């Protein structure tokens, strides 16, 4: 089954699931209230968006020099940097380190880039145990499913479902209390931090000026993942670079507000290198894997380059009525929602993923919500245009050609309306049957009747 078929099948199933719809809409409405409240902490949210977009524009348009600066500073403090052009190269780099350290157990904090390159599958296939330490990620890992949302990986589950899952997988007692559920996971995870040989993290920002990475989180799990094991590996996309340390003063609150309706995320940590001589703690070695995986191709597209501004806050998913109705798993991609629909065709091929750009009403709520002002919904339009140029749908184009001829000739246009009026009464004979050519519409919607006198007929009689 192609990705497009899978999307349609899944969308058909999930849009009928009213329980799912209610759960997601309620959760995201709460998010919207909190987000709007926290936006007030900014002197002016719109100016903050503009400033953030400009910083990102600078970073992305000078990516080569900022990356070099970032890497030079990292290496100066003894960090080993691996450049990975492809997902396979990134997996190999990480597997190489894990093998060299003769690791058995790996603890990992949240990283969508790891989902993008299917890192856990690769590690598990080699026999390593990988445990997700973010609570939501841990929950979906126990369910053997990918994260539902780039920021809220388990938002599709209720407390009862999580309790059942823990009961089944961990043998814990049933409870509906979020605190108790968290404690159950914590007891398991604390042991894992201590025994893990390698900790793998993602990164929210990479600061070129100081050669630091910034990780922002609410549970403290990323800190433990980074600090306790002897070896730390950080995987990040090359677009995560920002020029200066002071840029974080804008981006950290912005990410927290847009992403989760928080003023600031609970734990904000900067990492600048492995344990230095004389220091008491921290990993003995740190490997940073910089992933391209076709990001440079997106960089080469002047129209859609701004999609690399993305800070993965998930704001566009949260407001997207498509996402809110089909849910995160339907997309079948690491990055779902509007940003996923924009970048997946670039990262994984337009031919197989163009349907994501089609599955949008182009309402623009995403573009309005994006804190770094990515022109998301217009990029979906451009993807549609590019898909037609690459692989022309012959019948559809012919139909539009024909329509153009009819629409531009008053006599033909009049004739078409009369034809419609004549045949509309017969439509109800085949309405909603297999023979109904308009079934996609009529299955759930009534068809408005053709007017007995069209506007143009009225206008002509009036003149």
């Amino acid at each position, binding site marked *: 089954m192609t990705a497009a078929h899978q999307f349609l099948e899944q*969308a*058909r199933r999930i*849009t*009928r699931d009213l329980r799912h*719809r209610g759960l997601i*809409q309620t959760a995201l*409405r709460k998010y919207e209230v909190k987000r709007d409240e926290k936006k007030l902490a900014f002197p002016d949210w719109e100016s903050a968006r503009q400033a953030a977009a400009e910083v990102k524009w600078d970073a992305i348009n000078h990516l080569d020099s900022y990356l070099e600066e970032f890497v030079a500073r990292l290496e100066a403090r003894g960090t080993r940097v691996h450049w990975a052009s492809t997902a396979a190269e990134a997996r190999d780099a990480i597997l190489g380190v894990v093998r060299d350290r003769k690791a058995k157990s790996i603890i990992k904090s949240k990283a969508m880039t790891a989902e993008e390159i299917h890192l856990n599958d690769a590690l598990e296939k080699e026999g390593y145990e990988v445990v997700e330490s973010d609570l939501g990620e841990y929950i979906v890992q126990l369910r053997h499913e990918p994260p539902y949302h780039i920021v809220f990986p388990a938002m599709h589950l209720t407390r009862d479902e999580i309790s059942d899952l823990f009961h089944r997988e961990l043998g814990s007692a049933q409870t509906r209390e979020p605190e108790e559920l968290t404690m159950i996971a914590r007891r398991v995870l604390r042991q894992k931090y201590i025994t893990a040989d390698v900790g793998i993290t993602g990164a929210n920002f990479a600061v070129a000026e100081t050669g630091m990475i910034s990780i922002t989180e609410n549970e403290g799990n990323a800190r433990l993942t980074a600090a306790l094991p002897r070896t730390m590996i950080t995987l990040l996309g090359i677009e995560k670079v920002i020029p200066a340390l002071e840029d974080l003063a804008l981006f950290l609150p912005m990410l927290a507000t847009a992403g989760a309706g928080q003023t600031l995320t609970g734990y904000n940590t900067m990492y600048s290198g492995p344990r230095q001589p004389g220091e008491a703690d921290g990993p003995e070695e740190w490997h940073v894997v910089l992933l391209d995986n076709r990001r440079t191709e997106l960089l080469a597209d002047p129209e859609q380059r701004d999609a690399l501004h993305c800070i993965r806050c998930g704001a566009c998913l949260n407001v997207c*009525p*498509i996402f*809110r*109705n*089909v849910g995160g798993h339907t997309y079948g991609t690491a990055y779902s929602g509007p940003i996923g629909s924009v970048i997946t065709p670039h990262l994984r091929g337009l031919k197989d993923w163009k349907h994501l750009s*089609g*599955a*949008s*009403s*182009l*309402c*623009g*709520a995403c*573009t*309005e919500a994006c804190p770094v002002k990515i022109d998301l919904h217009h990029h979906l*339009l451009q*993807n*549609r*245009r*590019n898909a*037609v140029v690459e692989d022309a749908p012959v019948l*559809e*184009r012919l139909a*539009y*050609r024909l*329509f*153009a001829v*009819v*629409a*531009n*000739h*008053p006599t033909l*246009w009049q004739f078409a*309306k009369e034809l*419609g009026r004549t045949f509309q009464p017969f439509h109800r004979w085949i309405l909603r049957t297999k023979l109904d050519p*308009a079934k*996609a*519409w009529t299955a*759930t*919607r*009534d*068809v*408005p*009747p*053709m*007017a007995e*006198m*069209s*506007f*143009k007929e*009225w*206008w*002509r009689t009036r003149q």
Partner: protein
Amino acid sequence: MTVTLFIPCFIDALYPRVGISMVQLLEQLGHRVECPDDIACCGQPAFNSGCWPEARAVADPVLTRLRSSEVVVVASGSCGAMLKKFYTDLFAGTGREDEAATLSGKVWEFSDFLVRCLGVTDLGARFPARVTFHDGCHGLRELGIKTSPRRLLERVQGLELIEMTDTETCCGFGGTFSAKYPMISTAMGEVKCAAAQATGADYIVSNDSSCLMHLQGLLTVRKQPVKTIHLAEILASR
């Protein structure tokens, strides 16, 4: 002034009352109205489907025909956005981009034209009913129209406007999207209808008949009592 009224294809064929109301209102305000007979569509269906050469085949004569117009009023926020915003993209690199930019400067959506161009809010309308207003996305986000329709509704005698929750959320029509992804479009429409019904309104009003066609289609099949009506029809009610 002479107003060129652009009547989109579906309003011509399905909702002539919307266009007729607009003609009456504009004439009532003392303007001369002309409706070009030789153009029927803005080309948005092909444009949104990615078929830009085919969209240009529809849009080329529109651009030519409207060249001499003083001001162009479009009877739909969505088609208005096509003429005002997307023609510059569609014609980029074709040699007609300047014409598209000139046209953009004189295009108005109907309700915005009344309020922000003519400065009119009271048209002497009377429509005793409770209504809720649905913001069509193209009008709202491409053209920035939010207050104009509401200011017009405020002055309608007997009318009570009750805002629904998530009034800025898309109804799910989305042009060809509604037929290509009917299950998503329907789910979005259901959410919208539920929000409208929760207000207890008799009517869902919009400045876009395409959203209303989708919503009315859902409401009729579900035998729900809420009705849909275009803003211009309310403004022309006495």
